[in-house]
């Protein structure tokens, strides 16, 4: 075979692979969309919205852990800053439409993320995790002390208001489809980001950072942008959650939540976009089921045990295991 013919062949194989990957992704997206569209017919919309908010939170987190290789232990700070900002604005300025409150919350979380990143991004591994944790604890302290957060009491009765000034969000169905739209848009955005040229550099950094540096990439700038995006989306999740539940509280800022999002992501599987969604669904469901039963006081212990089990035995998470299974049985 001539060299150029061989080249053409190899590239054809590659493009065919890309195409089939793309097809798979689209089919999966459509299945997800279909499921979420009909879900409120079967399940309680507020519960579904809770899942979607945490799923968005986990997807945002996974942009760092799964695609950049950065473990943040302070992501609750972003969720909370979005939650408080939106809660405060919608409670105090009745002229604001809901989406403005949400945008403002997202913007504040994005800026906070920039601040965190500037301090932490040069650190590696566990040091990075520790610094993000420390900064998040500082934010927690700030939220406790501040007036606008309502301190220990939090913010209650945040009005859901009107989307664009005319869609009544106090109707749970309206609210649900709005949350769904925001979730899907964010999900598709992250999907785009991780497959973009930028995402390719992130993957390179995750897989071999010194090599990425020696190829001339200023890795800290790429990490910084990824971090800022991730914190912005985490803030968006917090803002949405505040509107859905009409409250923002210290629970949103607690390090517990920073740990929980790690748990969701690992259980679902870090390597994929769907992983964190599945993980969030799993954890929110489990917490709900347990809280209904006699094991209510054991929630943390049980989640901890699952966490340990995942790390030891199922490193690739639910989605990872499913993929392995399908590969084994379909080939």
């Amino acid at each position, binding site marked *: 075979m001539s060299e150029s013919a061989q080249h053409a062949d190899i590239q054809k194989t590659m493009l065919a692979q890309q195409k089939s990957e793309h097809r798979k992704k689209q089919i999966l997206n459509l299945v997800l969309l279909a499921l979420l569209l009909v879900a409120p017919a079967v399940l309680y919309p507020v519960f579904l919205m809770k899942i979607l908010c945490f799923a968005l939170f986990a997807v945002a987190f996974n942009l760092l852990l799964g695609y950049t290789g950065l473990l943040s232990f302070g992501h609750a700070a972003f969720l909370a800053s979005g939650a408080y900002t939106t809660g405060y604005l919608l409670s105090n300025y009745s002229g604001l439409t809901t989406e403005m409150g949400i945008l403002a919350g997202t913007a504040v979380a994005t800026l906070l993320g920039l601040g965190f990143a500037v301090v932490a991004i040069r650190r590696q591994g566990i040091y990075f995790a520790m610094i993000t944790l420390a900064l998040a604890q500082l934010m927690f302290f700030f939220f406790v002390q501040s007036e606008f957060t309502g301190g220990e009491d939090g913010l209650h009765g945040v009005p859901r208001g009107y989307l664009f000034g005319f869609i009544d969000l106090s109707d749970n169905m309206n609210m649900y489809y709005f949350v769904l739209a925001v979730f899907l848009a964010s999900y598709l955005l992250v999907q785009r980001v991780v497959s973009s040229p930028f995402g390719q*550099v992130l*993957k390179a950094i995750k897989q071999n950072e010194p090599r990425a540096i*020696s*190829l*001339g*990439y200023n890795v800290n700038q790429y990490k910084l942008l990824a971090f800022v995006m991730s914190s912005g989306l985490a803030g968006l999740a917090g803002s949405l959650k505040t509107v859905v539940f009409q409250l923002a509280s210290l629970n949103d800022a607690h390090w517990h939540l920073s740990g929980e999002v790690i748990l969701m992501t690992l259980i679902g599987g870090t390597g994929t976009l769907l992983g964190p969604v599945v993980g969030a669904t799993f954890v929110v469901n489990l917490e709900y089921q347990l809280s209904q039963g006699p094991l209510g006081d054991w929630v943390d212990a049980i989640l901890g045990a699952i966490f340990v089990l995942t790390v030891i035995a199922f490193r690739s998470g639910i989605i990872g295991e499913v993929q392995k299974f399908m590969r084994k049985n379909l080939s």
Partner: protein
Amino acid sequence: MSDQFVLETRGLVKEFKGFVAVDDVNLKVQSGHIHALIGPNGAGKTTVFNLLTKFLIPTRGKILFMGDDITSMKSAAIARKGVVRSFQISAVFPHMTALENIRVALQRFEGHSFHFWKSGNSLNALNERSMALLDQVGLTEFANTTTVELAYGRKRALELATTLAMEPKLLLLDEPTQGMGAEDVDRVVELVRKAAQGRTVLMVEHNLGVVSKLCDRITVLSQGSVLTEGDYEKVSNDPKVREVYMGKSSNSPSASAPENQEASE
């Protein structure tokens, strides 16, 4: 004339908490040369590479690249200037295909690496050039193979191809033949020879057979400082060099090579 030298270090020192790993090294690498940096284990060769590429910060001393002082530049900036290194332990992106490894290197020149909104398909424009680079190192048929699945020698070849994709002016190779069988070694020798056309190479190499075949000039490092420098003839006949290698465990291939050389004369 300093511009005849692509790379020059002046009084380069690296101390680790009192331990001097690199001690007053004055290195001059001439344009177009393949220059070897040899020395026993722990001599400080990799540390010199880390200093040159700023993976470590020099304690003292200066580094000049084509006459410019690059001592205070950052790693990525040095790479963009054309000083590109490989690593002693093969450095690839394991979960990308061979072709994607090259593409991510070529991608930087496109100036769209921050474009997070752009489709990944735009990278397909780089496929043809990536293939050409894979051809150069004999990896054409592995283009679509995930890199973890490649044999060790092939990973090293891929690393070299990725390095070449950067169009480096100065290539720093840290033991490109380490851990390879004789066949792979010969291939790498040919690769380096080809890669060196039109550029300058500084390589750490334990295999003196490789050094004798490839290198125009050799610097011997021992306990952090330069023991001697010259062409292969001069260095291999230097009793000091012999002594340094003899002092080390005699079962390493590099330890016996200078002896054989002497015995045969």
